[in-house]
């Protein structure tokens, strides 16, 4: 039994937060530096009443437009911006997308590694004959967790949803996986309050993060330097292990897509690993870091722009919140 990705779509919310908008809110902000070093000019963000499930529904309808939706027999929904504590957003999506009731559906909570994990789950469900056609939706609205006074995170993150269909294939088009976890870093990228350990606190006090960014414990916290330390250590090893497990060299890989964290980090990783520029995806100019959606957005982007062709081998690498990381190689 072999598997392939047969379709990818993505959706960006309509509202745009540009660097100029940020400059108006934060006078003195160096927007040239944000564009050049962070590599972001604008991000799409949800309106107040728009959720990750709403985005998932839009992108789900889009991908099923010209597809026999009765074939879908499993739905995987990756989000860290859930509609409710319970039930699973995947159950609600089954109904709203008009999908078959004879199918499995569940949510899983991962961020920047979520797409690679979704492919691993989908592949194993198909190989074990539990399912044959899987709809994987990765959708996040991290902007909803960011304090409006948190300049750095507002400049970095954007919202997006992506949908991918994985199904049986004659030849194997999804390779071997390398997955990793190190929960000792969980506090470095976290929304501390709002779960059951620390309830949402309406009186949470403001914390000055320096560089003019303010947040509370109800909001997203990211220790940027520590996350960068983690990626420096984890990603080069992940790349070499993924190549090794798939019995292939970096030279034989046609294109490389990393999770798009920010331009500076991704460019440093490229140089450190020794990846030629022309084979490396680096584009978050109009989206920002969209967490679990960056990799499928990139795949669709390079397919649409004909940067990759049928038969090409693409290395996919996700890493981030958790810490959690994963790599695989797909054949187009």
């Amino acid at each position: 039994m072999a598997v392939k990705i047969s379709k990818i779509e993505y959706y960006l919310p309509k509202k745009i937060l540009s660097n100029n908008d940020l400059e108006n809110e934060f006078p003195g902000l160096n927007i040239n530096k944000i564009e050049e070093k962070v590599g972001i000019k604008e991000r799409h963000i949800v309106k107040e009443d728009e959720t990750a499930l709403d985005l998932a529904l839009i992108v789900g309808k889009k991908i099923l437009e010209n597809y026999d939706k009765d074939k879908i027999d499993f739905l995987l929904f990756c989000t860290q911006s859930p509609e409710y504590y319970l039930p699973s957003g995947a159950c609600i999506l089954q109904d709203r997308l008009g999908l078959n009731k004879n199918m499995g559906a569940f949510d899983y909570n991962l961020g920047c590694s979520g797409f690679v994990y979704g492919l691993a789950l989908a592949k194993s469900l198909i190989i074990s004959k539990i399912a044959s056609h899987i709809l994987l939706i990765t959708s996040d609205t991290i902007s909803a967790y960011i304090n409006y006074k948190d300049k750095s995170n507002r400049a970095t993150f954007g919202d997006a949803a992506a949908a991918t269909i994985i199904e049986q294939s004659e030849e194997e088009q999804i390779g071997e996986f390398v997955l990793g976890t190190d929960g000792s870093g969980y506090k470095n990228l976290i929304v501390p309050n709002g779960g059951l350990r620390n309830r949402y606190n309406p009186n949470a006090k403001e914390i000055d993060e320096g560089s003019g960014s303010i947040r509370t414990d109800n909001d997203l916290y990211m220790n940027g330097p520590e996350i960068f330390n983690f990626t420096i250590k984890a990603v080069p090893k992940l790349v070499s292990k993924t190549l090794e497990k798939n019995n292939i060299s970096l030279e034989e890989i046609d294109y490389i897509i990393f999770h798009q964290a920010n331009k500076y980090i991704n460019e440093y990783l490229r140089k450190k690993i020794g990846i030629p520029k022309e084979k490396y995806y680096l584009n978050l100019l109009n989206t920002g870091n969209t967490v679990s959606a960056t990799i499928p957005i990139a795949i669709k982007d390079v397919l649409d722009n004909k940067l990759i062709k049928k038969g090409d081998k693409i290395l996919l690498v996700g890493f981030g919140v958790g810490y959690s990381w994963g790599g695989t190689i797909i054949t187009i």
Partner: protein
Amino acid sequence: MEKMNIKDFINELKDALEIEDEDQKITLETNLKDLEEYDSLSVLSIIAMIDKNFGKQIPSSDFAKVTTVNSLKDLIGKKHFE
């Protein structure tokens, strides 16, 4: 890994901070936090510079204590310098 001399270290640091003005003097006594160029992104640049030249990652909690160039040098470790 080879030991680095202080002049090269300061030049690497100026590159990381994107200080293009050749005349701007950076010494071991310069307090990084007083520099106009020092922001959250320059911290990433300095982390990258240390990883590239010394193969080391500095924990962010130690990084927060850095004041002068000399304190950064001590954090990297005296054995890495001439």
